[in-house]
């Protein structure tokens, strides 16, 4: 099986968000960058599928600054075979230009499966995977939480409101994966050593003009101060009234 995994370098979820001096982006001082956690599931799934098949190649592809090489190395340490960095200055706010660059790279790769995380934990864009699939003309299932593959086709389950949607699709396909699909492995010592020697190709890439322009990054509105409704069970009628009429959650 030849599998591509498209990954992203993102700020750690524990990051305390401070807005940079430009007023449009994250102040990266003291910020730790990691492999997007949903992409970890994708890498893990690719490795398991290759291991099950007994042969094949897992290629990790990232689009981003030179620092993404470190992120690719993390995936290589987990066991991926080689890496490709589509090196760009900064990533735009919209996913289409990234999807275009990835589609160009993937087009003639002969992949049986192309995996993405369902979203990146920084921009919550939730779109590069299915856009890439559309550009490649490949079938796509998003948010896969359970996956069975057989010769030439697969079935997947994805979470929807109130249940799990069961989906059938032919291969090759693009899948974006959700938490719960697997438990990603820790890179082993030997994997870390081996990762240094695995091929990592850096391709300078120019992205097209973005369709979204960031005007500003602003802090979220502060939670408005709460109040003590009352004391003891006597406060319940008032509490219910507020939940119903003011908060509108009942």
């Amino acid at each position, binding site marked *: 099986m030849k599998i591509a995994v498209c990954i992203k370098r993102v700020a750690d979820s524990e990051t305390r968000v401070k807005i940079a001096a430009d007023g449009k982006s994250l102040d990266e001082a003291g910020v730790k960058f990691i492999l997007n956690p949903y992409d970890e599931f994708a890498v893990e799934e690719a490795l398991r599928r290759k291991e099950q098949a007994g042969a094949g190649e897992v290629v990790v592809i990232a689009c981003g600054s030179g620092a993404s090489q470190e992120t690719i190395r993390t995936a290589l340490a987990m066991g991926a075979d080689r890496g490709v960095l589509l090196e760009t200055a900064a990533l735009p706010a919209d996913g289409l230009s990234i999807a275009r660059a990835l589609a160009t790279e993937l087009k003639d790769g002969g992949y049986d499966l192309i995996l993405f995380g369902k979203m990146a934990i920084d921009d919550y864009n939730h779109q590069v995977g299915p856009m890439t699939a559309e550009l490649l003309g490949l*079938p796509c299932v998003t948010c896969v939480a359970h996956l069975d593959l057989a010769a030439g086709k697969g079935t997947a389950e994805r979470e929807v409101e*109130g249940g*799990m949607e*069961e989906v059938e699709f032919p291969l090759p396909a693009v899948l974006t994966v959700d938490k719960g699909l697997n438990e990603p492995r820790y890179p082993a010592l030997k994997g870390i050593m081996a990762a240094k020697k695995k091929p990592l190709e850096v391709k300078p890439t120019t992205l097209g003009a973005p369709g979204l*322009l960031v005007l500003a990054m602003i802090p979220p509105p502060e939670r408005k101060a*709460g109040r003590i409704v009352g004391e003891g069970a006597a406060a319940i009628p008032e509490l*219910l009234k507020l939940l119903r009429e003011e908060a509108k959650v009942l």
Partner: protein
Amino acid sequence: MSNVLAILEQRDGTLRKVSHEIVTGARRLADALGGEVHALVCAAGPVSGVDAAGRHGADTVITATNAAFGQYAPEGYARTIAEHAKAGGYGAVVCAASAQGKDLSPRIAARLSVALAADITDVSVDGGAIVVTRPVYAGKALLKVKVVSKPAVLSLRPNVFTPVERPRPGIVEAVAATGDGGRVVVKGIKAAAAGALDVAEAPIVVSGGRGLKEPANFKLLEELAQAFGGRAAVGASRAVVDAGWRPHGDQVGQTGKTVSPSLYIAVGISGAIQHLAGMRTAKVIVAINKDKDAPIFKIADYGVVGDLFEIVPALTSEIRKLNG
């Protein structure tokens, strides 16, 4: 002047509630652009409830019917909508950032060769340009973004665009969608098992802490959760999970699960910052605690000070009455 195409959702032939939010958002945008709202729903046949779209501001409601559209058909829906959007010369296409909308909207945008502004919480028009607000970094910051490609494809975060009644003609028509459903076929939806609601997904979470004094007392919270009729899950603070009172999967907090239900009821939880980190994004927080200085009251929208062993059973019986 440009019109807005609102993409509605149906399940099993019935319009989904989120559709009202989509129409509401689309109406707001169309008013700012000086255009009409055309609502489109893909289905296998007539959709019950489509007439309500007019009430929330749709000028026309089109049902695109195709035998393959009973279940969500990602490729068939995307093709139908993209063709319709192209033919109609719309200024914007508005979807929900629901499970279906998150899958569908990027496909539509890609087919139209335009950007997608996903999961937006606000939209406005500034000097003719569409400007949206969307949360990033798990809601720790908001981005204000100008959409420069046309049509603007937007997905609206659910539960944000509260439906507003803005009656319009809502002329209902049906068109036959040609082509097949596509290669990706949805076979059906397995309903989530009753009572298996996870704290991370439940719309209501009732959480307990050390104030419950002993594990057996969590029964009080389970009863309260049941009173909400299958919409609530029981969570726990780290202290009681560490003490072995509750399973680790129920833990809400920095090292447990991060939850953002529409209602979070914290019972006997003092509100260590680690716990707050896991639930501060809840829409409404209620705290019940005997210590009026407990930090949980600083973040709670509504607090009740007092003995939880008196308050919780009383609350449970009131909620039961409410839910009949």
